[in-house]
């Protein structure tokens, strides 16, 4: 008692000022997000668990029970060690459904707003002693330092400032389920202060009171033994019960629940806390026995009580200031977070349930001020409980009363995760029984000072004489769990509860139904929601949900609209609790009932399975591996595939179909069939309603081109499965259809060619006769005029013969005539002959031909067949040329080859077509004008002559046109077999 009230007040105010400064620094961005979002900050924020109990209550418990005080730390460390199987599933659930408190979680799982209200009332009753404990330690610490007559008033001032802090920084965000960087950083700051202070006090005890670890051990083995005999080693059963209580506290206490689950933190960060939080708690627990033994050595425990031994370590103001600051830091952090979480629970499960916020003009502002008022009320009620009740009890009694009360929710929480068969009636019955035993056994005696009323069931008489906290814990939890199980088994579970149980269960995958909504686009959600939330809030909530999902407001897919509805409900749950949120969406965004029996939303189930992969083990993992493999078979099938549900909703759109249609699967899966882009909606509708399972070569326009698609349908309905629908295979038969057309055309041309050959033969006979008669005429007369006439007749009949011979050769497709020997052929002559024939055609008369082949250049070949080559090439060049264009045939020697070029100034060739020109039936001409056989024939003839052919389009240095280059040998090769060329080469 060597400090003045003013100095202690200044110390406390200085600390609170630092808290506000820390908060401002984060708010203003003075601290880097890399610091404020570091996982260590989260671990330190979780250190809010180490409340004033950890600073003072642990000393009291250690003095009574020795290492029994460690239960407070080891219980919560055990819970975090089980983070992957216990905390992560709860975190996933709270995040998915935007649940911010235990009451939200229970109301969501057991589908009742009254369950939420019940949990809120129990939390409030249970937490009051803990709140009182915080304020009480504050008042006691001030009294110990100053000896002031009214420390409670100073405690009230500090509590009010802490409440002010919570009101300013705890309601910055409209919704709870958002990461409060400022708050987390400040709570981490308070954890650092209390950790440093405790370690410093432990150091003072070890090195200033004792002379180091060796001296401490010597004291423990010697004179210290006298002090230790008064310590009652806890019975193993008591110890385990304490562990269970503190294990439950890690999951159920509102302030721990808030930091662990309501703050949006990553799964990785939570898992990291499984070892980092126990480490923090180890460091917090380590100084406790040191301070206790130091206090015992100094003999100060008698004077100031075991809980506050740290104040007796030294007469120095600064040592006592450390003990005071450790307690104030722990108290402030705990009060702020409890006020935040309890205010949210009271608001969502008591006030909003009693008074729904129908069309509040400014909903966000209204909610914010309500929460601020509730925060102040929570902290004030803690102070009042301290003044009226707390002062009459020690810290252990207050703390245990709180922890045993909250532990009544443990059976419900475990059932929520691991027992889908649990129902509301069972949970409420068990909870009411357990809480009643707790109220009668611990809470009311706390309030009234009367002895505990505990009815020990028959067979458990050995519990008589045990500490009341122990008996109440065992009897209440056993009765709670037993009633819960029995009532759940004998009563019926509603459909809503069953669905929620599946959503909450660790092993289950949510299987929502495919129900249609009245709204047809996201935009249409705003108007009905405005009736409940007001226009501005409705617009902001819909836009926020659309942004969260990355959806367009005009997206009309039923699947997307269902996800939007779920997201809006989850977001409203974060704002007003799950009960009110569900009421609003059920009322204003209802599903359309009637019609077909709804089936599972397979697409959604699949997306959940994808997310759950790391959670699967054993057989489930193997099955999931098989599912993925089968799905991959379908998605990568090189044939288009889509599947529809019985309600015509698209369930699958594989990669091949996406490539064929140019429509990404993600943008259409979940849409109704009639909402698909043209021509797919109508085409697939035809396939679904056709009397037969196959539609062949349906003509559709895709990407500006006509395609021919064949569709094959199969029904998915099976006897042992309620899921029905249809699967459709879509094959692109366009190429085959074109080939068929070309084959028909070629066959027609072939028959015309045969006809032409017959006609030519019939013409050839009379022409030969005319030629013979003209010959005779020349022998029979000397009249120059007659001779000239006969000569002209002979020339003209020769010309007819050449034409007929060319026609026959062409009609025979350039077949090589057996026995024809290769001989030197002038390309100039061959070209002239070809031009002669070409000019007979009516088309292309205005195209100019230039034969620039030098007459002396010859190749070794079959003149008839080379003429065929030139006719085909010149024909193509003429067809490609514009009126007035010119075609040049040129030749030049290249070593032992002669290079012949045919160059036109036409439109050129498409690169894609150019690579296939020598394949049969490839043509650039309109249907009916080209057979696609000319160039393959040319290629074949050139190959027979051991030459080669290339196409340049456009020719080098030119902007348009095409040049065909032929290389033909000029002399015989030694091993060449010219008599029997292989026509198949």
């Amino acid at each position: 008692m060597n400090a003045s009230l003013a100095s202690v007040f200044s110390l406390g105010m200085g600390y609170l000022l630092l808290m506000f400064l820390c908060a401002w620094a984060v708010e203003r961005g003075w601290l880097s997000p890399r610091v404020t979002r570091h996982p260590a900050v989260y671990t330190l924020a979780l250190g809010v668990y180490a409340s004033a109990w950890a600073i003072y209550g642990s000393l009291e418990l250690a003095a009574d029970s020795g290492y029994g005080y460690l239960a407070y730390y080891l219980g919560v460390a055990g819970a975090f060690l089980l983070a992957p199987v216990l905390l992560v599933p709860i975190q996933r659930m709270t995040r998915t459904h935007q649940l911010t408190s235990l009451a939200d979680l229970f109301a969501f799982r057991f589908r009742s707003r009254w369950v939420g209200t019940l949990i809120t009332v129990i939390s409030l009753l249970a937490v009051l002693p803990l709140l009182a404990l915080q304020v009480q330690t504050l008042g006691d610490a001030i009294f110990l330092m100053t000896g002031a007559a009214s420390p409670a008033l100073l405690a009230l001032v500090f509590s009010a400032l802490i409440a002010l802090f919570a009101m300013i920084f705890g309601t910055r965000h409209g919704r709870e389920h958002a990461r409060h960087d400022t708050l987390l950083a400040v709570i981490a700051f308070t954890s650092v202060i209390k950790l440093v202070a405790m370690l410093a006090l432990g150091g003072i005890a070890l090195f200033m009171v004792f002379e180091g670890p060796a001296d401490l051990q010597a004291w423990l083995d010697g004179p210290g033994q006298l002090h230790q005999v008064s310590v009652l080693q806890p019975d193993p059963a008591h110890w385990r019960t304490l562990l269970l209580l503190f294990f439950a506290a890690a999951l159920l206490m509102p302030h721990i629940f808030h930091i662990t689950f309501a703050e949006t933190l990553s799964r990785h960060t939570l898992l990291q806390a499984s070892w980092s939080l126990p480490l923090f708690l180890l460091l917090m627990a380590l100084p406790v026995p040191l301070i206790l033994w130091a206090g015992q050595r100094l003999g100060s425990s008698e004077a100031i009580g075991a809980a506050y031994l740290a104040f007796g370590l030294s007469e120095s103001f600064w040592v006592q200031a450390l003990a005071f600051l450790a307690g104030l830091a722990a108290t402030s952090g705990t009060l702020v977070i409890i006020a935040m979480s309890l205010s949210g629970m009271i608001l969502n499960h008591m006030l909003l349930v009693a008074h729904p916020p129908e069309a509040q003009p400014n909903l966000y502002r209204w909610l914010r001020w309500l929460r601020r008022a509730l925060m102040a009320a929570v902290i004030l009620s803690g102070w009042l409980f301290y003044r009226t009740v707390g002062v009459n009890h020690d810290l252990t009694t207050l703390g245990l009363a709180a922890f045993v009360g909250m532990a009544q929710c443990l059976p419900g929480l475990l059932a929520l995760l691991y027992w889908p068969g649990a129902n509301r009636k069972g949970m409420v019955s068990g909870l009411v029984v357990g809480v009643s035993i707790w109220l009668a056994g611990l809470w009311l005696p706390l309030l009234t000072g009367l002895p505990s009323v505990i009815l020990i069931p028959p067979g458990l008489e050995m519990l008589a004489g045990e500490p009341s906290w122990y008996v109440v814990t065992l009897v209440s939890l056993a009765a709670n769990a037993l009633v819960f199980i029995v009532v759940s088994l004998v009563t019926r579970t509603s459909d809503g509860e069953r669905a929620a149980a599946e959503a909450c269960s660790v092993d289950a995958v949510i299987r929502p139904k495919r129900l249609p909504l009245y709204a047809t686009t996201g935009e249409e959600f705003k108007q009905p929601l405005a009736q409940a939330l007001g226009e501005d809030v409705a617009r902001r909530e819909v836009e926020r949900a659309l942004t969260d999902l990355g959806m367009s407001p005009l997206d009309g897919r039923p699947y997307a609209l269902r996800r939007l509805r779920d997201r809006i409900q989850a977001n409203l749950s974060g704002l007003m609790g799950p009960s009110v949120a569900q009421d609003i969406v059920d009322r204003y965004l209802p599903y359309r009932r009637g019609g077909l029996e709804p089936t599972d939303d397979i697409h959604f189930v699949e997306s959940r399975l994808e997310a759950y992969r790391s959670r699967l083990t054993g057989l489930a993992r193997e099955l999931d591996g098989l599912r993925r493999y089968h799905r991959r078979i379908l998605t990568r099938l090189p044939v288009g595939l889509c599947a529809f549900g019985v309600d015509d909703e698209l369930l699958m759109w594989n990669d091949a179909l996406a490539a064929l249609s140019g429509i990404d699967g993600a943008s259409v899966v979940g849409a109704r069939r009639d909402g698909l882009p043209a021509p797919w909606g109508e085409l697939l509708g035809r396939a679904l309603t056709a009397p037969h399972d196959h539609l062949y070569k349906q003509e559709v326009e895709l990407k500006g081109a006509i395609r021919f698609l064949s569709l094959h349908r199969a029904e998915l309905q099976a006897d042992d499965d309620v899921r029905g629908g249809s699967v459709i295979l879509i094959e692109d038969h366009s190429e085959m259809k074109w080939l068929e057309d070309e084959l028909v055309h070629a066959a027609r041309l072939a028959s015309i060619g045969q006809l032409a050959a017959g006609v030519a033969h019939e013409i050839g006979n009379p022409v030969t006769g005319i030629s013979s008669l003209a010959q005779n005429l020349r022998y029979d007369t000397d009249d120059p005029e007659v001779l000239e006439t006969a000569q002209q007749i002979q020339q003209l009949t020769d010309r007819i013969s050449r034409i007929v011979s060319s026609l026959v050769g062409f009609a025979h497709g350039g077949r090589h005539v057996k026995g024809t020997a290769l001989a030197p052929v002038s390309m100039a002559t061959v070209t002239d002959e070809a031009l002669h024939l070409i000019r007979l055609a009516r088309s292309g008369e205005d195209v100019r031909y230039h034969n620039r082949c030098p007459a002396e250049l010859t190749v070794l070949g079959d003149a008839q067949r080379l003429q065929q080559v030139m006719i085909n090439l010149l024909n193509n060049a003429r067809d490609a040329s514009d009126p007035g264009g010119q075609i040049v045939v040129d030749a030049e020697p290249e070593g032992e080859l002669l290079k012949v070029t045919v160059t036109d100034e036409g439109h050129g060739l498409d690169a894609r077509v150019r690579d296939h020109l020598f394949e049969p039936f490839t043509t650039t001409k309109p249907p009916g004008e080209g057979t696609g056989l000319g160039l393959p024939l040319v290629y074949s003839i050139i190959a027979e002559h051991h030459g080669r052919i290339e196409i340049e389009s456009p020719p080098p240095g030119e902007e348009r046109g095409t040049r065909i280059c032929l290389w033909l040998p000029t002399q015989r090769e030694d091993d060449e077999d010219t008599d029997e060329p292989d026509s198949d080469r």
Partner: protein
Amino acid sequence: MYVYRIMLFLVFGGYLLSPLLMSGWSSPGVAWYRPFVIWGILIALTLWLEQKRKLDER
């Protein structure tokens, strides 16, 4: 996921055997910090399991 089973085993095994921790409070010749050393070893084990879990889920 097999790592989770080890964790479950550790926690429940620890829960059952934990009363042994407290026997050293007043026993002469027993280092006072023994429970904290055991606790520290458990934390190191958890850290190691956490690393294993990350590899398992990769």
